[in-house]
């Protein structure tokens, strides 16, 4: 398109000390030969060294979404509540009364595998900045974690480090970590997943965007000083690991949650005084991507003077300053005349602020620095800045390559799906099987994790971790009027089901995350995604990705919930072995009335236990039961009937909103099937003194016992109702086209599951609880 625009961009002179740039150097920056040629053609010249670094990060998979962009457009991103869809720092959804929820999820997989504590901590720090950058106070964190098989030699240290890191950051900055998910599979042995979700709340008329407009407006750097940490983090995130992966340690950033707390409070104070044109955090690719993206969104240009950048390491070169991913830094563009007040607020919070440039109308991103100048030197030389980079903004953003990479169905998939789960020998005791399943690392209590997270800081947490959705009360105040918003949160994905059918698995992830939010008593109002896949240059991986997008899109359209933000993490492979395709999704739900809030656990004895939705548990393919007995993700997986799912969620929400309340608890059936769901209803309550047993029968008589107990078919919810209310619940459900099956009743100190009068499972609640709570003991000890 613009290959004929030669020599329109003047070349900066080579910066003293920088290496000469050629194709080999470009290749070592992970640019392909075609991309190098494309860059040279666009510029009409070869880039200088710092420019090459900038191009390589801006065109990296991580920043440019070059392999995923052609597919992401198929996701539904609009709706009556959507204030801001994908493309900004985070998505924004209207929650009424003049307030909005701001949320996003992001991966920090590669850094966490190299340095679990700092990788996870800075992942949390980064997503928090994405949210408060938009003017919102963060009110909840969630995390979605995947590790390798429990007995892999690195799993214990990775799990300990990641959980401590997530907690260490969130606990210190004072944002409650209210929920999440954790699972283990050998596919993650060489590439764990650490996905962090944050939601904040903002006045809908005080949302801030990453814009750099208004010629002459000052560009202000606020926060931590720049060091050499994290250089080329974005390109590392776009690369596979090899067996010597941990040697990349120096590229992992180090987090300082105290600094970020100061940054958060200072920014919120600056927002309240309306001093800014725009703001963006310096995340991946640091100063470069933040400034380029701000100028790109505004169609403006920028002139930045690196001599003014606060730094903590001596002798930093322009290349290093532009690519550093030092944490806890923000880039602000102030309104004219407001810079002094911005600096004053920063001083109050003991933060450094420096004016490092200004907005221009040239459409060019121009960087200057003085060769040899170092403010940290014993005797700094006089400043005489020269141009280091001079690049068109749209060249770095819009002209980044976009690939529609080839796709091919995995030839091994039909064979894996053909496995017949009925060939698994029935266990000698279904009671022992239930206890073993309930106490397995994938299905047991996550208490060891969430006890390390401050899930109640700020005092608003109403439903703590352990139910289908966490619920947080958020006090909101504007112009002296106070309202309270109740928001529900869940994150979900079953990578095994995605592995066997990416379309169905991704649709089921969307359905489940919404179902979880509805089980909490809330209406889902928006979704964010974090799409973790292998190497997109392999056609089988690209096929998974494309199908997962289509599955998510179909489920979102059916359920009427938009995706408003997200993140793509590709190249999750080690030595050519990809992770399970893991399109993690997070949902935000709005509770209409505080009386609608619902928990998963059985609340009392003497209630009727009903199953809403489908009656069958199978097929068993991809279930924990099959993997546990065969070691492989295989078999015919369940599919989802989206129309039935829509009806189920509508009926459940209607029931939870009805007054008087008939439905007293709600828990969806997912990993581990109906038996595990019932075990969780009995034993997964905060207070062990409040455990309530149950005596139930399986709903379907024409199905194998294993599938009936442990099949993971979606579209099912276990609820409790008062005796006598069953008919009214059945009437409401029937009117909404949802089946209801009476399973039994609550009470006693045991969970008993029968079929056709024959007792299959009979376990005491104390042993069930102990099994669940000790599920990680083999990995991390007591």
């Amino acid at each position, binding site marked *: 398109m613009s290959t004929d625009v030669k020599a329109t961009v003047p070349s900066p002179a080579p910066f003293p000390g920088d290496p000469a740039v050629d194709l080999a150097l470009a290749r070592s920056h992970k640019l392909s030969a075609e991309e190098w040629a494309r860059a040279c053609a666009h510029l009409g010249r070869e880039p200088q060294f710092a420019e090459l670094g900038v191009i390589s990060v801006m065109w990296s998979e991580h920043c440019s979404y070059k392999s995923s962009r052609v597919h992401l457009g198929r996701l539904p991103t609009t709706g009556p509540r959507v204030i801001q869809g994908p493309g900004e720092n985070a998505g924004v959804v209207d929650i*009424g*009364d003049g307030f909005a929820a701001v949320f996003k999820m992001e991966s920090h997989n590669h850094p966490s595998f190299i340095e679990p504590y700092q990788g996870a901590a800075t992942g949390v720090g980064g997503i928090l900045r994405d949210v408060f950058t938009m003017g919102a106070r963060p009110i909840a964190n969630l995390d979605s974690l995947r590790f390798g098989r429990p007995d892999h030699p690195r799993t214990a240290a990775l799990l300990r480090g990641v959980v*401590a890191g997530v*907690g*260490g950051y969130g*606990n*210190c*900055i*004072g944002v409650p970590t209210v929920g999440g998910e954790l699972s283990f599979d050998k596919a993650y042995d060489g590439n764990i997943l650490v996905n962090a979700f944050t939601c904040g709340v903002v006045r809908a008329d005080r949302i801030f965007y990453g814009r750099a407009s208004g010629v002459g407006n000052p560009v202000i750097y606020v926060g931590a000083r720049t060091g050499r940490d994290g250089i080329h983090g974005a390109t590392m995130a776009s690369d596979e690991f090899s067996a010597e992966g941990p040697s990349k340690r120096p590229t992992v950033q180090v987090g*300082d*949650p*105290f*600094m970020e*707390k*100061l940054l958060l409070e200072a920014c919120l104070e600056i927002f309240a005084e309306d001093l800014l044109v725009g703001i963006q955090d310096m995340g991946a690719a640091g100063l470069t991507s933040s400034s380029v993206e701000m100028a790109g969104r505004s169609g403006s240009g920028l002139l930045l003077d690196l001599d003014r950048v606060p730094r903590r390491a001596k002798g930093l070169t322009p290349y290093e300053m532009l690519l550093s991913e030092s944490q806890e830094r923000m880039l602000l563009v102030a309104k004219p005349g407001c810079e002094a007040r911005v600096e004053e607020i920063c001083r109050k*919070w*003991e933060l450094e602020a420096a004016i490092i440039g200004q907005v221009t109308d040239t459409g060019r991103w121009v960087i200057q620095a003085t060769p040899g100048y170092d403010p940290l030197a014993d005797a700094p030389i006089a400043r005489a800045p020269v141009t280091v980079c001079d690049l068109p903004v749209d060249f770095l953003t819009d002209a980044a390559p976009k690939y529609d990479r080839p796709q091919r169905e995995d030839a091994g998939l039909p064979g894996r799906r053909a496995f017949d789960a009925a060939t698994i020998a029935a266990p000698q005791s279904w009671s022992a099987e239930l206890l073993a399943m309930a106490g397995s690392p994938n299905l047991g209590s996550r208490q060891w994790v*969430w*006890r*390390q*997270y*401050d*899930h*109640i*800081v*700020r*005092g*608003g*947490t*109403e439903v*703590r971790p352990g139910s289908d959705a966490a619920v947080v*009360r958020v*006090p909101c105040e504007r112009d002296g009027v*106070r*309202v*309270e*918003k*109740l928001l529900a949160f869940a994150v979900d994905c079953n990578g095994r089901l995605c592995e066997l059918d990416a379309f169905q698995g991704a649709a089921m992830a969307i359905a489940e995350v919404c179902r979880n939010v509805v089980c909490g008593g809330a209406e889902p109002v928006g979704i964010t995604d974090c799409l973790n896949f292998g190497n997109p240059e392999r056609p089988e991986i690209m096929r998974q990705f494309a199908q997962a997008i289509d599955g998510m899109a179909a489920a979102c359209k059916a359920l009427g919930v938009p995706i408003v933000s997200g993140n793509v993490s590709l190249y999750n492979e080690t030595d050519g072995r990809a992770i399970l395709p893991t399109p993690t999704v997070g949902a935000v739900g709005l509770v209409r*009335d*505080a009386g609608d809030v619902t928990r998963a656990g059985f609340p009392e004895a003497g209630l009727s236990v009903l199953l809403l939705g489908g009656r069958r548990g199978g097929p068993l393919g991809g279930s924990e039961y099959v993997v546990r007995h065969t070691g492989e993700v295989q078999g015919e997986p369940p599919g989802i009937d989206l129309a039935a799912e829509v009806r189920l969620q509508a009926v459940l929400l209607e029931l939870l909103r009805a007054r008087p309340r008939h439905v007293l608890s709600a828990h969806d059936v997912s990993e581990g099937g109906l038996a595990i769901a019932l075990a969780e209803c009995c034993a997964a309550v*905060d*207070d062990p*003194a409040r455990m309530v047993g149950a005596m139930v029968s399986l709903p379907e008589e024409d199905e194998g016992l294993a599938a009936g107990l442990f099949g993971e078919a979606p579209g099912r919810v276990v609820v409790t109702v008062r005796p006598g209310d069953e008919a009214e619940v059945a009437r409401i459900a029937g009117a909404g086209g949802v089946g209801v099956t009476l399973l039994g009743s609550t009470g006693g100190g045991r969970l008993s599951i029968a079929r056709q009068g024959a007792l299959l499972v009979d376990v005491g609640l104390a042993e069930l609880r102990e099994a669940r709570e000790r599920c990680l003991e083999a990995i991390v000890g007591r």
Partner: protein
Amino acid sequence: MNHWPWRDNRVTPSTDMHATVILFPGSNADAEMVRTLRDVLQVRTSIAWHRDAELPAGTDLCAIPGGFSYGDYLRAGAIARVSPIVAAIRRHAERGGLVLGVCNGFQILTEAGLLPGALTRNAHLRFECRDVHVTPQAEGPFLTGLPRVLRLPIAHAEGRYQASPETLRALEESRSIAFQYCDREGRIGRTPDEAPWTEANPNGSTLSIAGIQGGPRRNVLGLMPHPERMSEDFQGGADGRSLFDAAVRSAAETMAPAEITGDAGGA
């Protein structure tokens, strides 16, 4: 629509009490402290900044909330103690004014020498957030009318109370151990040496100490559990409210004489 939730209709002691919540850089449990005082108890509530040299005039209760003051980079509370406001808190405490330090606030009070002993890393070396039970073991302005056992949440990495044998003896003799960790029936277990934390004693504190009191009239209380995070039913229980109710009653009793002597407010 939901109304402002904390206009609770339970009987609130009628009060003219004035509470001040202290903010350090890194305080993060200030929101719930303000909410409990201002919205649940309907107490006039101010904020003081760590650089302020004086508490707001008329302050009856000075509350130091939890968090990570100054990042806790030296020791929890170790840098906060040299803040200007700490000198003002000390004067307030010496005059008999109520001081409540929760979690990091407790750590600041011990670092500042307003309460004896120290809070060290939890015995299992992990951050721990969960509900525990505590039992009030003494009398004092924060402890009158409390239930025999309170269910309260903890959320800390450094909450293991330790002190020298002499200090512990002095605390016991002066009835200054305010709260001890216990089981739901109120039984205080012995903490075995080999596994120094138990389900009841979550961090391995010496003598299961969860909070201590000091000051000329037991007017300074420090505790690790968070009463301000369990003062409304939606939070999973409201046992924490009783402690604030006690403080309000105490302030109401002492306010009038203080005004006569012209000593109120510390202006």
